[in-house]
């Protein structure tokens, strides 16, 4: 039962990264990221309940609560604050147009299928498809960073990569050691704070948050 649920959730998480890729407004990036994090929190919740009932372990439950607090509430809130203070609301110039970007994402899923299909999955009843789905989220996040030129888009791309890594770790290996999870959260929050601050400074210095402005250092 929980296995089916996880399978469904992992597909939904992949789908949410497609939705993100098709977005044009920076505010909808933040919304899509929030939905994706919520789905990840649900997956963590399912696994947490299972491990609590089977082995009496609390750590995945705590991680689930942390995801809700940090990735669903705190970080999107922070991003919204940054967003409110910059002028650019809509991305106009993509490297490719959106339908092609989405098609490339499909290609990325196929690519990760072929890299990972040969790997014998873990012994803990995880199907290879879940691994493929979650690794695809990482590549899509990376591709999202490349395709967007605004600073906020790049920050969200990185957060999606982190989400993908997180769901990979959780599905593939029943969660990292608890202390590692905690450390990753601390790093993530620091990252968002630092990047937010740099975005403000960029907005001051260049009067825009277009990362194409950052082209003075060469050679």
């Amino acid at each position, binding site marked *: 039962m929980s296995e089916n649920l996880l399978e469904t959730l992992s597909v939904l998480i992949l789908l949410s990264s497609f939705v993100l890729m098709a977005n044009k407004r920076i505010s909808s990036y933040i919304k899509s990221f929030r939905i994706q994090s919520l789905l990840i929190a649900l997956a963590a919740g399912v696994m947490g309940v299972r491990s609590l009932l089977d082995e009496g372990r609390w750590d995945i439950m705590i991680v689930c609560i942390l995801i809700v607090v940090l990735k669903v509430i705190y970080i999107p809130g922070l991003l919204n604050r940054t967003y409110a203070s910059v002028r650019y609301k809509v991305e106009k110039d993509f490297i490719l147009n959106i339908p092609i970007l989405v098609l490339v994402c499909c290609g990325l899923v196929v690519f990760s299928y072929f890299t990972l299909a040969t*790997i014998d999955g873990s012994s803990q009843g995880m199907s290879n498809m879940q691994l493929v789905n979650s690794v695809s989220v990482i590549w899509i996040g990376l591709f999202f960073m490349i395709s967007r030129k605004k600073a906020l888009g790049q920050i969200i791309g990185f957060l999606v990569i*982190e989400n993908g890594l997180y769901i990979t770790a959780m599905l593939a290996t029943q969660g990292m050691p608890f202390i590692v999870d905690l450390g*990753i959260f601390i790093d993530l929050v620091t990252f968002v704070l630092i990047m937010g601050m740099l975005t403000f400074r960029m907005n001051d210095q260049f009067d825009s948050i277009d990362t194409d402005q*950052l082209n003075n*250092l060469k*050679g």
Partner: protein
Amino acid sequence: MGFLLLVIPIIALLLLFILKAKRLHHLVSVSSAVLLLIIAATLTHDVILYGAIAYSSLGGFFYLDALSMMILDIVLTIGLMAAIFSIGYLEEEVRQGKLPVPKIRLYYMLMVTFIFTMVLALTVRNMGLMWIAIEATTLASAFLVGFYNNRYALEAAWKYVIICSVGIAVALLGIILLHLSSAGILENGSFLDWTALYANAASLKGSVLRLAFIFILVGFGTKAGLAPMHTWLPDAHSQAPSPISAMLSGVLLNSAMYGIIRTTAIVNHNQGSSSFAGRLLIGIGILSIATAAVFILTQKDYKRLLAYSSIEHMGIIAVAIGIFTPLSIFGGLLHMINHSLTKSMLFLSAGNIMQRYDTKQIFKIKGILKTLPVSGTVFLLGLFAIAGTPPFSVFASEFSITAAIFNQSSLWVGMVFILLLAVVFAGIAVTLFKMFYGQPDSTEAADAKTGEINIPGTVCLVVLLAAVTAGGVYLPETIRELIIQAQGIVLSII
């Protein structure tokens, strides 16, 4: 005892936070660096005598063996040099009006945090925690790279954080796969534990492990500045304040390389031969040296040139680790030490030059030896040293690596390697030696008196130069013993 390594930076951070006077900030930073070095010295002694140090308290995450001890010693030595140099450097920046006084405190707080994260990366046994600490080094140094807060510094900082974080995210995927390869073999408590992975290396799943190695090489390779993932490095190293550039080049790159070495040891142990990891490492190493050679030949900015030279040396170390014979590992580890000392010496003297001339452009600088007799001499000799001329220490380690390549009868690799080193030497000679010729411009000479600016910093330079020169002819027994033990760990002949 070992926990003090982690506690002292935290105490220093608190003191910096509480204390107000500028003088005390300098004092706290230097004295914490001295204390850390003293502790490291006693721990080195213990490691050489008893092997690895581990404590069972706090989940048993603290772990030091000869390999991490060696790199930790480098970190703390360079950390001390940078701390002493910073005093004069910052005072001069304040005097020139480039830096408001309150920012000194911020600078030291970030620097102490930076050292803390590097010490953490080197003293944990869990690969996951090591990853976290290495990611934290990026975050801790982001504002140091962008410290001057102008357009260029901002661009460098942005690129630095984005590229390194994404790179290191790839390494995390590698570590997850490493975890996956050990599923069903390791106990719950020893997940991602390096010693456990190493001990059970033979029974890990080979296919997953190979995939994991590729991701870890790309990920930590980004942080170590290996081409083609090196693009953040010249920007970050040239924009950061000079003592920070010295630490980035001399220390941070080694910490990332350390992650690669640890993983290589597991993978080679598992595969029973070094051919898989070796080929990847040699390829990426040669590519890095070649990239650096091209950019050094055409460089106009001396700090960027030094940064490219760091890429070259990381490439040399990657090749040495890839060859994976006792001689090459010895040479590679020795090269880490030599490169760190020489490169930080160069970056620090470049800091003095930059404060005197107020430019990073090579063609605007003439007659350094007249205006800055000591820093100029150190810079000149340092350039010879970093290019690998005898009698300096870099020559000794480069020579043993080259010998190891030919011993292993990788004739083509050896020839390309030597050719590229020659190109780099020529590049440094052609581009940088212009700075030493000619008379200082008359306009410069009017306001710039001859003589050194930063006296304590200059003493550091002389100490480093002495160490680099002595290291070429004589390797102290303690250091040799430490390197040999580290070599044993990498090659699994303990």
